[in-house]
Every structure is written in C-alpha cells, then in structure tokens.
C-alpha cells in the first residue's frame, strides 16, 4: 500500500490586531496557528483540530500571516477564520508557498495588504 503524504494548502491571512507570541522565532512561530487551532477545537473538537494540522509558515513581520493546513480540513479551517478574535481576513489560498507568495505580489492583493488604506462600513 502506498504511503502517501496528505495534501496541504497554504493560506495567507491578514490580521492587524494580532499580538505575536514572545517565545520562539517571531516569523515561523508567531502563535497565529495556535489561536486558530484553539478556535477550531472550540467549534469542532480536539480531534478535528489536531487532524487539520494547522501550522505557522511565516509572516511578513507585520500583518500578513501564512499558515498551512490539511486539504481535507480546509473548509473547517476557512469557516473558523472569520470567527477569530482579533478579526482576520483570508487573502489567498494556494497549494504551494511559492505560488502563494507570487500571487500576493499581484496589484489587487497589494491593496489589501496595506494597512489602514481605507475604511469601509457594513458590507453585505
């Protein structure tokens, strides 16, 4: 039987008010994945939270966090992100980190990446 590694997805999330963890490396262990895992555990249970294998991949040192999760649990992770406190916005989802970073450089995402560029009220 083939022992195949489960597929993963990389998610770029913007979170302005998140305070990074003091312990460990600030870029690769920001603590954002832990916050998200806690929310997933609250909603779906500890088994699903562990199986979704949410990990910190990196951040730009500012407000954009890149996390990784199991592809099979992507809908669960995506449903938990809007319910996070502090609020977080999913910018991009990709199969590879390389592609994710390339897409993030596109002009349409540059606007969303920039802080406090504009203020909007009550979108539907």
């Amino acid at each position: 039987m083939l022992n195949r590694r489960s597929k993963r997805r990389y998610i770029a999330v913007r979170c302005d008010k998140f305070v990074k963890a003091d312990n460990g490396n600030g870029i690769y262990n920001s603590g954002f994945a832990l916050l998200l895992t806690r929310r997933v555990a609250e909603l779906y249970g500890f088994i699903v939270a562990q199986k979704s294998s949410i990990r910190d991949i990196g951040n730009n040192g500012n407000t954009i966090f890149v996390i990784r999760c199991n592809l099979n649990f992507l809908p669960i992770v995506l449903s938990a992100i809007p319910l996070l406190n502090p609020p977080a916005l999913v910018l991009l989802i990709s199969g590879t980190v390389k592609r994710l970073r390339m897409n993030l450089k596109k002009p349409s995402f540059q606007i969303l990446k920039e802080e406090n560029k504009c203020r909007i009220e009550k979108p539907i």
Partner: protein
Amino acid sequence: MESNEIPHSLGIDVFGTDDYLTNVKESLIYRCNKSSKPKVPFLITSESIGDLSSMVNIDIISLRDINLKFEDRRKLLRGIGLEITISNLRLTDGKQLGKWIADISSFYAYCKHARFQFILSSGATSICELVSGRCFDSLLKTCGIDPISYWNDLNGWLQTRLIRRHTYFA
C-alpha cells in the same frame, strides 16, 4: 483607492457600505437609514423591527438575536431581508458559537418558509473584518445551508429590490 477592487480580490461581486463614496461603481450598494435619493443603488436598513410600523419601505432589518419574539415575527413584512452579522460572534465563546451555528439552519428554514431573505453579513468596519467569498461558503456549509442556493436567492432578491427602488424613486 478604487473601492471596487476590494470585492474582486475577495471573491465577492457586490457589497454594501454605509459610506457614500464618490467613486462608487456598480459593485457597491449604498446602505442608508432614511429614504433619501442618492445617485447610486441603495437599500434602506434598520436595526429595529419597531421601525417597520413607522417606515414602510425598509429593505433590511439587522438582527442581534435570531430568536425572534412572536410579536416581532408578526410585524415583519414578506420579502424583507433579515441580516445577521458575523462581527457580533467574534467575541463569543465556543459554547455560544456552537449554539448559534446549530440555530442558524432552523432560522434559515424559517426565513425560506415565511418568504424573508436571509442575509449573512460580515458587519465589517475595517478591511480586516471583511469575510472572503470562500469563507462565507464554508461557514454556510457548516451552518447546513447550501451556498449556491443562498447566493442565487440573495442575488435574485437584491435585483428585485433594486429594480423596485429604482422605479419607486424614478
């Protein structure tokens, strides 16, 4: 910044805003409290069901609690949009959130049965609080709502309301 660039990046075609933006384009709908006559597509919103008795042309009622009282249910007019915001849920704990998710499917069924339009909104006041299209779909699936039928219903309702409003103020 071009305001119409935000929805495209997030997978949302149209979004509503309280701010009257001068560079507003087709992808934005202006939300107002009074029956003013702006030059852009608009919908009248209210946070109180009691306003329905004084104002007849309200399009959307923003609800804080989905468990409506019997008296409030009787006041609601057929075809009105009932809006629930995600921003209120962020501060709640897992238990309350779980209860909300469990209750929302029955509320959606009630809206369908009573011919109200169920609207799930982000309630964002900043870009970071916005919810992308894929997250909306996942959240709807979690709540036991088919995203395709939800978006189709919402689109149809929105078109009907905007056409009605356009002819009403023409």
